């Protein structure tokens, strides 16, 4: 996805990436990234939490409008209220 952002941006369209995998995003360096330390699959928060969904979305839009440094990665300070771990696998199908 970061690669796609790089190609789109290089072709003249502004991009902003909303990532839950900080290390994955940092190495591919999309033009602008907002890191949200929430579980993968919950980049905008919990189901039906409209306020949090809007908060993350507005933060990304603000980054798109105001960033000045190529490859910038901003950490959203919000904390997920429960523990979570890396959880890939067939249980997710």
């Amino acid at each position, binding site marked *: 996805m970061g690669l796609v952002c790089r190609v789109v941006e290089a072709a003249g369209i502004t991009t902003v990436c909303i990532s839950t995998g900080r290390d994955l995003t940092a190495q591919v360096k999309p033009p602008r990234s907002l890191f949200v330390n929430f579980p993968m699959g919950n980049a905008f928060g919990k189901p039906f939490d409209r306020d949090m969904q809007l908060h993350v979305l507005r933060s990304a839009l603000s980054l798109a409008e105001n960033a000045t440094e190529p490859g910038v990665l901003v950490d959203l300070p919000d904390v997920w209220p429960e523990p979570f771990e890396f959880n890939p696998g067939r249980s997710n*199908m």
Partner: protein
Amino acid sequence: MSDATVRTEPIRYVEGLAAYYGAMGHPPYQWSVYEDAPWQPLPKPVSECRVTMLTSGGISLCAMPAFDPLARNDHRLDEIPQGADSKDFQIHDSYYDHRDADRDINCQFPIDRLRELVEAGEIGSLAPRFWSGFMGRIYNRTKVLEESAPAYVAELKKDEVDLLIAVPA
């Protein structure tokens, strides 16, 4: 629940994925690593921009085929009409836990929230199409760089998109 139990450090996905796929017999993924990034400043305020969104989370409309949850090198890219009903989606992707997003797609692909920000005047307009594709585990990245992504750019330009919001999963 005390604060001591919440996560403050990011998950180390690079290590976790190497262990996970290594145990399945796959060779280590050769990640693309870049030291710099291309740059196109937003040409006008978001409130005047045409915006769209791309997810790589295996999300498709119920009327479309499911994504292959274990796909590798799947360059499928679905266009999703801007007016799609947020309750009319399915998710098939083994990469992440999407039980919350199954209940409310806006957890991962907030199309209702985008529409609300247009109504509120914070976003100029939405493009006629949202997008879902470029699922994980694409090993043939040259094809992304030289074929799939440039073809996608052409579609974004047809829609006169000013800003792409990308949500990897």
